[in-house]
């Protein structure tokens, strides 16, 4: 939980700087939370990160178009986290009974995440007007909410909307597999021991990655997982090798390029070689991760979860 806060706070800082450096798009897995309560807190903390606020342009400069998913209108409500925290209390006191814990409504009150009043609101203007003039119960919430309370409530409700966008929620508990079954799969049908050993290359693997990242990297060794150590920070991926036989002469090296027309490699001495592919040129690609690719159609989800549970237990 502490990690989450720190990461999001750091992102907020970097977002506030008016620089032209590439801003990291908000991606799932940027923070990792396990509990529902934690998720709610992280959503709040990171709300601004994912609201994709366009930075103010230099005087005279054209504003940049928004980037990434979930951008919405340029003039959208920007959530103030402290305001949202205060608004959460206003919500709990005045609104929660009818509109529900998650503001998604109940038989007694409308879904506020899907409410056009909320989506059209900026800093309480529409929400305040509605509460004052059009709210069907008129008593609860009280008409005597102050302007500040309405503003805080607006921050809270907008943070709930932003929290429903893609990239703003994160993976839950994926450790559902059976350790013993995973061990049997690892040592038997899975064929993992052809290349791996839990006392060799995979020693203490359960400490190296969080469980969700371990699952992603077990299935897709070259792709990232979740959270700060989503790429593990370990050894770089093994290179794809290629052997080119031009009829009598064979050369093997690290593959630089391969398509239907050309192949290029760098040999052990670091020399670059490029060939046109013809009927006379034989090309053999050796992908060190080919076994993982070939396993993808064979895995059952149970086997996947079992082997991940086993690897997670290797600590």
């Amino acid at each position, binding site marked *: 939980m502490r990690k989450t806060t720190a990461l999001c706070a750091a992102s907020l800082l970097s977002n506030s700087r008016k620089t032209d450096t590439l801003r990291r798009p908000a991606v799932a897995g940027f923070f990792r939370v396990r509990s529902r309560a934690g998720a709610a807190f992280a959503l709040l903390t990171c709300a601004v990160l994912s609201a994709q606020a*366009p930075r103010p342009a230099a005087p005279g400069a054209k504003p940049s178009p928004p*980037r990434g*998913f979930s951008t919405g209108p340029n003039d959208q409500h920007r959530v103030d986290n402290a305001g949202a925290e205060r608004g959460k209390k206003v919500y709990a006191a005045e609104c929660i009974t009818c509109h529900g814990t998650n503001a*998604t409504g109940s038989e007694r009150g409308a879904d506020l995440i*899907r409410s056009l009043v909320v989506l059209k609101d900026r800093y309480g203007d529409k929400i305040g007007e509605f509460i004052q003039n059009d709210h069907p119960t008129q008593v609860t919430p009280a008409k005597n909410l102050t302007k500040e309370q309405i503003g805080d409530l607006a921050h809270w409700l907008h943070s709930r909307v932003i929290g429903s966008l893609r990239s703003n929620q994160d993976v*839950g508990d994926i450790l559902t597999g059976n350790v013993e079954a995973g061990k049997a799969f690892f040592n038997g049908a899975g064929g993992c021991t052809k290349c791996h050993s839990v006392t060799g290359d995979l020693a203490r693997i359960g400490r190296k990655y969080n469980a969700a990242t371990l699952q992603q990297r077990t*299935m897709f060794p070259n792709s990232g997982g*979740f959270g700060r150590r989503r790429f593990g920070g370990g050894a770089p991926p093994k290179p794809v090798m290629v052997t080119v036989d031009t009829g009598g002469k064979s050369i093997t090296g690290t593959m630089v390029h391969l*398509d239907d027309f050309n192949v290029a490699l760098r040999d052990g001495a670091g020399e670059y070689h490029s060939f046109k592919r013809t009927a006379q040129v034989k090309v053999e690609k050796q992908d060190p991760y080919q076994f993982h690719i070939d396993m*993808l159609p064979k895995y059952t989800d149970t086997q996947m979860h079992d082997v991940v549970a086993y690897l997670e237990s290797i600590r």
Partner: protein
Amino acid sequence: MNRLMRHFLLAPAVAGLLSGQVDLSKAPTDSWPTYNGDYSGRRYSPLTKINSGNVHQMSLGWVYKASTGATGGGFRGTRVSATPVQLNGVLYFAVPDHVWAVDARTGREIWHFEWETKGGIHIGNRGIGIYGNWLYFETPDCNLVSLNLKDGKERWHQQICDLDQFYFATMAPLVVGNHIITGVSGDDLDRPGYIESHDPETGEMQWRTYTVPMKEGDAGLSSWPSLEAAQHGGGMTWITPTYDPELNLIYFGTGNPQPVIAGKGRKGDNLYTESIVAVNPDNGKVAWGYSVSPHDTHDWDGVETPVLIDGEINGQKRKLVAQASRNGFFFVLDRATGQNVVTSEFVKTNWSKGVDADGHPTSNPDKEPKVDGALVTPNQGGGTNWYPPAFNPDTGLFYVNASQAYSIYYIYDDSEKPEGWGGNDRGGWQQAMLQAVDYKTGKVRWSRKFEAGGTRGGLLTTAGKLVFGGDPAGNFVAFDAATGDPLWHANLGNNVTNGPISYELDGSQWVIVAAGDTMYGFVMNSR
């Protein structure tokens, strides 16, 4: 410039043809007057001056770099995914907030229009539509904008969706008679999809048809747990429809249901999301709808171009519509009735338990997203995606840029009423391939597998026995339409990002394609 002006002066007569006075079921040879070239969506050019026997001699005629001044990732860099329209020797195309007119003979810019944006997702723009002297395009901030063809000056703009609801707009408008047909995007919040028709002169809305039930009594309501769920059920409309003038029906595919991944609160088939829908362009009335992915939970928009095929099934002439859908399945329907004719896989999938009596793939609950993850193929990117396929009536083959891809689908919000994005997938591995599907059987006749994943460009096929498309290594390739063998290629330094087109000007056949921010004109020179 005088020559150009002369072309513009000729424009009204020719452009009049676009307002419903000719049958665009056949592609013209000297122009490419609409997103798909003609109304059928086949992307089949009858030109033969470039053919399988001489394509190896095709050469570069010009290069045009489209500059918006924007750089960087996150959709900010310039990527031409629009299929250009070519009329009277001028190419018109768009990226988000920008439209260009470029000389089709020389690649020289004639004008450039920039729209000042109020926001919205800038993921792409599929192109423009033309009616008379006017050009129409959609903007990320929900406007339909009409420009004067001759100078790119704005004539009017009309709001077609609500940015506050996180809608945005990318579709190349379709012109049918005096209707400018528009579609919308936006699956961030749980909003309903719709298509609209607008008056070409004023921009006023003529009709709007929702893709999901919006009131009691609407068709398909029983496929949702409640009216409230249906009204927030998604089904966006972001790829240009096709049109059958005889039946007077337009055909469009619809996007994913909402909430997109976490579908617990929308039990049922969720009609008409991820469906092929036939609509009368004069009044917006739905003739029929056919779900290609009942109750999808994988974000597999069914928007891919519904291609009209006048074909023969079991010796009988049939009016058909075919779609290679993002979920990995290929469908052929009777386009008068919506009855299923063929369902097959064009890539291997693992999410379906099979096909029901009406040809709908049946979802396997085990492969719906899970808190601990479900390994699924295809991935969220899909077996294919928005990029246009092609159909060649000479070979009877439907060509589609496809992907064999795996990812793990997670549920993040397992509450009873998740909203928005209560889950997502995480990749993955993929391999790109060009598939040639026999429309009569749905069987893959040939498959050209590439060395990597990541092809996201469209296809063109011609009477010259060719298929044009890109590979994942930045090559623009001419394939033999019958065998898939590559006959010519040029590395463009960037993967193909749009649908290639072809036309003949001054006796020479051209092939135009975009890769990233650059458009290339290839030509078979004549003496």
